[in-house]
């Protein structure tokens, strides 16, 4: 196969680059990260009609070659050939929004001035027409000096012409170029004036405004209906996360149970079987079971992003975010953190102010992620009576809601304190384009979901796989002497570590078995449930619901209500997730901040558990 070169897709945010990338490459995409940063690298391959294949890389959207945030820096570096782990592109496909021509042409002119082979994709011409704009692509091409191809990426219109233009422009052989050394040729104002002149010449006719977007915004951005709509949407999303996931979760549980039975029936009793069944299948299965909830949440997030609503949510939330020293942009990563803090922390890369971004990263683990649910479900079912209060509200549901609320309030307070201390600095700004509304393309949303599912499963198959094996070994060895009557877990290495931790945890009402459960839960919070099950020597059946019920009943007899409540309060704040700590390390490029995050969250967790325990004791519970 002949690889003829690398094409970079580059342009302003909201120009429809990703849709064009998906349309050109289909499902043949590889999603990874650029070395040293968590900026996503999306690459694919395009077959040309002359038999050549070219690689395409979709660069993060930016407004100029003078970056303001980490993802914009990657775009600049790739275009100039500075980016580690990326070849210098052989040609540029510059994507511009036909309806925002004067603004997008300014950056296009900057790119064209680099002198690389370039093609301009005049994208979303259908929406421009909808907004009353008629453009002359030939005139535009003449003025820019490069081919201009009108496209509608989401409807796959103009793609053949774009492919032909790429074929004609891409060099026959990928040449090693010297690293580009930028020099200021034209001032920002000159570029802007030229962009405006060229845009004006290319516009055949226009009507003044975006009618559809304006009409929707009248409701969505209204100070009264806007927040109500946002709250309603969040309510629907969280309802869906829990109600829609029940059936697929059951299916995954059944699959792992069948796998467990299969291995038990095939392998003889012994070390290997225990390792595979108790360690690998049980450990990895307890994490994979959250895949449906994560995908449902991501489905909504991707839909909200694709329609153009997400930036409106950021606009509505900016007032609240500003009060705690953050920007409205922080709302999007924090919303993602309800599924999992890892994509949430990764999404902070669009926040330009470094202090804003760091604060958002440090508080993201306080959003109640789906891994806390099994812990909450177990303790609430065991200790909180299933009865109605205040005219028909379920007490158990109310406690769950309060735990979510405690996380949000805790995050906002933490943000205020952090902004006044360790991330002190000038208040960041909030400058954002609100794109026009679009009907999302289901195919692109599904592709995005598949990519996220794959990233999650790969993590489950690597980090979590290895961690669960280590934990299983720590919980199983050394074995107590035969006939000693001692519990295997108590005698194990993990049991001994728990004895060391116990004096620190006893003041907040935690007993030895909680101390023991907290060690494996360092890998992932939900592991606390299976660790408690092991520590309680419960015979785990195939049905996890049954296991949880048995475990719950046993905990009722062994824990006091204040201890159970303190345990819940602990998990609102505890930073118990190795993957989150690892991604924070990668995102902040130092061990200092993940160490600080882990420390302050542990202190918060201890104080919250203590305050809950002491209050409950003094209240006579």
């Amino acid at each position: 196969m002949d690889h003829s070169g690398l094409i970079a897709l580059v342009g302003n945010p909201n120009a429809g680059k990703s849709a064009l990338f998906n349309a050109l490459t289909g499902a043949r995409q590889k999603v990874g990260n650029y070395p040293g940063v968590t900026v996503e690298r999306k690459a694919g391959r395009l077959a040309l009609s002359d038999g050549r294949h070219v690689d395409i890389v979709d660069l993060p959207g930016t407004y100029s070659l003078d970056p303001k945030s980490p993802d914009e820096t990657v775009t600049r570096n790739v275009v100039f050939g500075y980016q580690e782990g990326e070849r210098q592109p052989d040609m540029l496909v510059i994507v511009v929004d036909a309806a925002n021509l004067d603004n997008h042409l300014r950056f296009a002119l900057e790119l064209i001035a680099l002198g690389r082979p370039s093609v301009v994709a005049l994208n979303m011409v259908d929406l421009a027409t909808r907004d009353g704009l008629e453009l002359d692509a030939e005139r535009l091409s003449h003025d820019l000096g490069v081919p201009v191809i009108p496209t509608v990426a989401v409807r796959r219109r103009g793609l053949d012409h774009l492919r032909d233009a790429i074929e004609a422009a891409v060099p026959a052989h990928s040449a090693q170029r010297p690293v580009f050394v930028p020099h200021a040729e034209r001032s920002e104002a000159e570029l802007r004036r030229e962009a405006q002149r060229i845009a004006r010449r290319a516009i055949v006719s226009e009507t003044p405004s975006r009618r559809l977007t304006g009409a929707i915004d009248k409701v969505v951005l209204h100070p009264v209906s806007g927040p109500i709509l946002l709250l309603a949407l969040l309510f629907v999303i969280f309802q869906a996360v829990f109600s829609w996931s029940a059936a697929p979760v059951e299916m995954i549980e059944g699959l792992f149970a069948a796998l467990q039975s299969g291995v038990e029936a095939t392998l003889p009793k012994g070390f290997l079987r225990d390792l595979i069944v108790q360690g690998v299948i049980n450990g990895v299965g307890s994490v994979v079971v959250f895949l449906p909830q994560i995908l449902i949440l991501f489905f909504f997030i991707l839909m909200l992003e694709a329609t153009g609503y997400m930036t409106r949510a950021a606009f509505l939330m900016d007032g609240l975010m500003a009060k705690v020293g953050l920007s409205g942009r922080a709302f999007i990563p924090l919303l993602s953190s309800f599924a999992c803090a890892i994509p949430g922390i990764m999404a902070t890369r669009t926040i330009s102010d470094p202090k804003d971004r760091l604060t958002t990263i440090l508080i993201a683990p306080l959003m109640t992620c789906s891994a806390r649910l099994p812990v909450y479900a177990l303790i609430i079912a065991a200790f909180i009576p299933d009865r109605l209060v205040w005219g028909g509200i379920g007490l158990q549901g109310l406690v769950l809601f309060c735990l979510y609320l405690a996380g949000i309030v805790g995050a906002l307070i933490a943000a205020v304190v952090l902004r006044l201390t360790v991330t002190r600095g000038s208040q960041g700004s909030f400058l954002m384009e609100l794109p026009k509304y679009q009907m999302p393309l289901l195919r692109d949303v599904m592709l995005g979901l598949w990519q996220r599912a794959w990233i999650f499963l790969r993590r489950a198959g690597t980090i979590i796989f290895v961690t669960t094996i280590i934990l299983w070994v720590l919980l199983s060895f050394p074995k107590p002497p035969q006939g000693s009557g001692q519990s295997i877990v108590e005698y194990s290495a993990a049991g001994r570590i728990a004895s060391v931790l116990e004096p620190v945890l006893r003041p907040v009402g935690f007993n030895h078995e909680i101390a023991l459960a907290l060690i494996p839960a360092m890998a992932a919070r939900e592991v606390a449930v299976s660790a408690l099950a092991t520590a309680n020597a419960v015979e785990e059946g195939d049905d996890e619901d049954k296991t949880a019920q048995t475990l719950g009943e046993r905990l009722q007899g062994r824990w006091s209500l204040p201890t159970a409540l303190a345990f819940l309060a602990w998990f609102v704040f505890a930073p118990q997730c190795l993957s989150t700590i690892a991604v924070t390390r990668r995102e902040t490029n130092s061990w200092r901040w993940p160490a600080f995050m882990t420390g302050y969250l542990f202190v918060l967790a201890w104080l919250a558990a203590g305050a809950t325990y002491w209050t409950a004791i003094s209240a006579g519970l």
Partner: protein
Amino acid sequence: MLLTALAPNKPAYVDRIDWAAMSDADGKRLRELGLCEGASIELLHRAGLLNWLLSRFGVTRRGAHACRVGRMIVAMRAAHAAAVTVNTGPVAEDEAGPD
């Protein structure tokens, strides 16, 4: 008048921007979003339920502003909007100049 005082949905154009009132990076980003002297502008929305409620009683508090700048909708905080002086009179000579 300042952009913060502009009535919603009233077309205007940018008369002057106090670039010294903001950081260089923010100023550059605003220009990249099309906000420069001579650009057509229209205030579309002000965010904040509390601000809206207080405004019913004549108390002015300012949240984020969503403005149409050219053909783009740009969101900015009141602090930035307060650095923009607008004019609702006849449009001045376009910055782009003649063809």
